[in-house]
């Protein structure tokens, strides 16, 4: 048999080859992973391939066309758009009424094909073709509409699939056009090839094409992840990773779970309520973490308990989860979810795995940084404690010296001259130095108590202006000028002892670090339910490097000459605790050499007696 190969024949053979390939791969995939999407795709393209094979056999006259074969081919052809509708329903959803209409039309058409007498078949060709074209038109319509809602590789593949359906429709329609048989055949074959190639790259794209299509999303995620380490706040960092993953996969939601080795739980830091899942949970996200492999789960059951706990949205049916791990260390899990199965879940899972690996690098470096910072903080705190001990010992030594020497002196005098009157001056010195020691020891104990937030005791109605004037009187000296700018009185509910301590500390500081003749200005005013207080000096100021640590315990300024200004380094940390425990705020503005201004804002009322309102940040749900 001699076959003369025309261009048109060549096109047709290519389209056959393409459809055979798609059919083969679709069936393989349906067998490997028998989920509805894959089964429908397998049926569709397997059937098409079979019909094309039969048609080819007929054309090459290897078999003769009989009614059975013609009916089979017609059935497959009419089934094609119907199966496409079902595929679209799996992936993007088709209104159930329309689905029923299409199913009815399909069943009716098939019944006609098989039951109608052979002589009527030709008369049925036109209405059957109309059903076919309308259905295909609808598939193209919803496919292109879905393109607008999807992203990345999914979107590109949907475009290809929709184009395939468009070409298939044109392929069918071209045969019905009033053209010369040669022209019609050329058009049919051309559209056939276009449909085949479109379906091929849409449904079973070759590896290089997938990578090419994944590229932009992956690159976008990489670019955004480069700026992630600059995000200071952890929960913002996790939200940024989630946003990136959701965007890359075109999913509505994503969430990140972090493995807590100590408690053996996965913690979801961005969940509305702080979410935790135990390792034994059978939720997909935990399974993916437990098995340390990417997981795709559809038909996630809606669990009202979980919904109540984690505020899940009931529409979520599909979860893609990938473990976040690096070098065998399990860090957590990244998952995205949405209401529908992606037609291309395998690709999405692959991409998610890449994103999870990238997230692992970011999270790992963040955790290492935090570890380093913790270590440094511990060292710093150890150093501060050491400094504190030596400072404490130092300050206790002077009164102790007076006590010892004075006691011995008085004793010696009494022994030498038992009849002499009591050494009143010496006794007074002993009493006052003991008092001084007592005050210092109490201050130390306060420092310890302040750590446990038990500083502020009984509150009463206090006039702050009165307190300030009393504190100023306690610290008045010839070397400094105090200026107090305040109204008659400012009343609030405070612990008077602690407020006096706060004011003493602030004025003492101002005096201590001011030059001789310096002016210390204290201002007081009320704004709504808050009383404001500022203490400004013209002293040595605070270097900007010290400002962040100023209110920390045992912190002493780098420009503070320890020899000139001995002290506990407790005063300001004490101030902060007193202010915070009163529900207020304390801050400082200063320039080295340019003086310092401490600002305190204290609520007039006791915040404990008011209802507490919490606000939560809303974020995506998670499974």
């Amino acid at each position: 048999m001699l076959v003369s190969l025309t261009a048109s024949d060549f096109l047709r053979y290519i389209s056959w080859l393409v459809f055979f390939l798609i059919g083969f791969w679709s069936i393989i995939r349906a067998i490997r992973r028998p989920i509805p999407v894959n089964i429908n795709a397998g049926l569709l393209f397997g059937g098409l391939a079979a019909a094309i094979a039969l048609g080819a056999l007929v054309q090459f006259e290897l078999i003769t066309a009989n009614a059975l074969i013609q009916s089979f081919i017609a059935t497959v052809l009419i089934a094609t758009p119907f199966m496409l509708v079902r595929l679209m329903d799996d992936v993007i959803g088709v209104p159930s009424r329309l689905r029923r209409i299409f199913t009815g039309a399909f069943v009716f058409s098939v019944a006609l094909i098989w039951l109608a007498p052979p002589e009527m078949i030709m008369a049925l060709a036109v209405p059957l073709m109309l059903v076919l074209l309308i259905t295909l038109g609808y598939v193209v319509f919803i496919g292109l509409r879905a393109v607008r809602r999807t992203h990345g590789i999914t979107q590109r593949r949907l475009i290809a699939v929709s184009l395939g359906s468009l070409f298939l429709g044109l392929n069918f329609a071209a045969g019905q056009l009033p053209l010369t048989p040669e022209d019609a055949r050329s058009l049919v074959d051309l559209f056939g090839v276009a449909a085949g190639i479109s379906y091929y790259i849409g449904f079973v794209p070759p590896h290089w094409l997938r990578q090419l299509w994944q590229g932009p999303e992956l690159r976008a995620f990489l670019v955004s992840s480069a700026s992630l380490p600059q995000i200071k706040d952890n929960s913002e960092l996790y939200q940024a990773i989630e946003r990136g993953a959701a965007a890359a996969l075109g999913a509505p939601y994503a969430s990140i779970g972090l493995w807590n080795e100590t408690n053996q739980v996965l913690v979801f830091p961005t969940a509305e309520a702080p979410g935790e899942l135990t390792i034994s949970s059978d939720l997909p996200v935990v399974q993916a973490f437990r098995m340390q492999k990417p997981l795709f789960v559809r038909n996630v059951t809606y669990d009202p308990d979980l919904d109540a706990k984690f505020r899940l949205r009931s529409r979520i049916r599909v979860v893609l989860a990938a473990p976040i791990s690096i070098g065998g260390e399990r860090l957590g899990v990244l998952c995205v979810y949405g209401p529908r199965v992606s037609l291309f879940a395998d690709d999405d899972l692959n991409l998610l795995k890449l994103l999870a690996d990238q997230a692992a690098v970011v999270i790992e470096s963040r955790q290492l940084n935090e570890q380093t910072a913790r270590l440094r903080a511990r060292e710093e705190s150890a150093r501060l404690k050491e400094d504190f001990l030596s400072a404490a010992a130092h300050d206790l030594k002077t009164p102790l010296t007076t006590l010892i020497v004075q006691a011995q002196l008085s004793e010696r005098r009494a022994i030498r001259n038992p009849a002499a009157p009591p050494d009143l001056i010496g006794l007074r010195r002993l009493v006052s130095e003991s008092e001084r020691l007592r005050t210092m020891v109490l201050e130390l104990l306060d420092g310890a108590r302040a750590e446990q937030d038990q500083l502020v005791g009984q509150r009463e109605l206090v006039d702050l202006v009165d307190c300030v004037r009393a504190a100023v009187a306690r610290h008045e000296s010839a070397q400094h000028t105090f200026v107090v700018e305040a109204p008659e009185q400012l009343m609030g509910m405070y612990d008077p002892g602690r407020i006096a301590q706060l004011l003493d500390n602030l004025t003492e500081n101002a005096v201590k670090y001011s030059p001789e003749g310096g002016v210390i200005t204290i201002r007081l005013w009320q704004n709504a339910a808050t009383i404001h207080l500022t203490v400004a000096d013209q002293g040595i100021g605070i270097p900007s490097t010290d400002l962040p640590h100023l209110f920390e315990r045992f912190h002493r300024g780098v420009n503070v000459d320890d020899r000139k200004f001995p002290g506990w380094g407790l005063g300001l940390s004490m101030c902060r605790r007193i202010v915070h425990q009163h529900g207020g705020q304390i801050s400082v503005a200063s320039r080295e050499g340019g003086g310092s201004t401490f600002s305190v804002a204290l609520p007039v009322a006791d915040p404990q007696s008011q209802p507490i309102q919490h606000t939560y940040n809303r974020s995506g749900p998670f499974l």
Partner: protein
Amino acid sequence: MTTNILIVDDDATIREMLTEVLEEEGYTVAVATNGAEGLAAIERTLPTLILLDMRMPVLDGWGFARILKERSLRMPIVVMTAAQESSQWSQEIGSAWTLAKPFNLDELLQVVQRAIRHHAMSV
């Protein structure tokens, strides 16, 4: 001949108490509240010995000792300090005598006597 002792310390209690102790021992005592006052007092009293606190306002122990050296005044100085680095500070200002707080009456008197005797022998 009386022995003059100068106490330079910003802590009034220590100053007064030491004055009492040393006067009972027969010394003549002058006091100053900081280094600057101390320099003025030296002009006045020409002390045999100086008891010197290190941390003081206006002019501290280091500055005070440096000026003494510049003026070639070589009377012995006893450094009185609560700091851990007391003997180091003594070395810094070229003094051989240290009274580390808290000291007691006997230590005080012993150091004062030894410093005066040592100085008398070396002159």
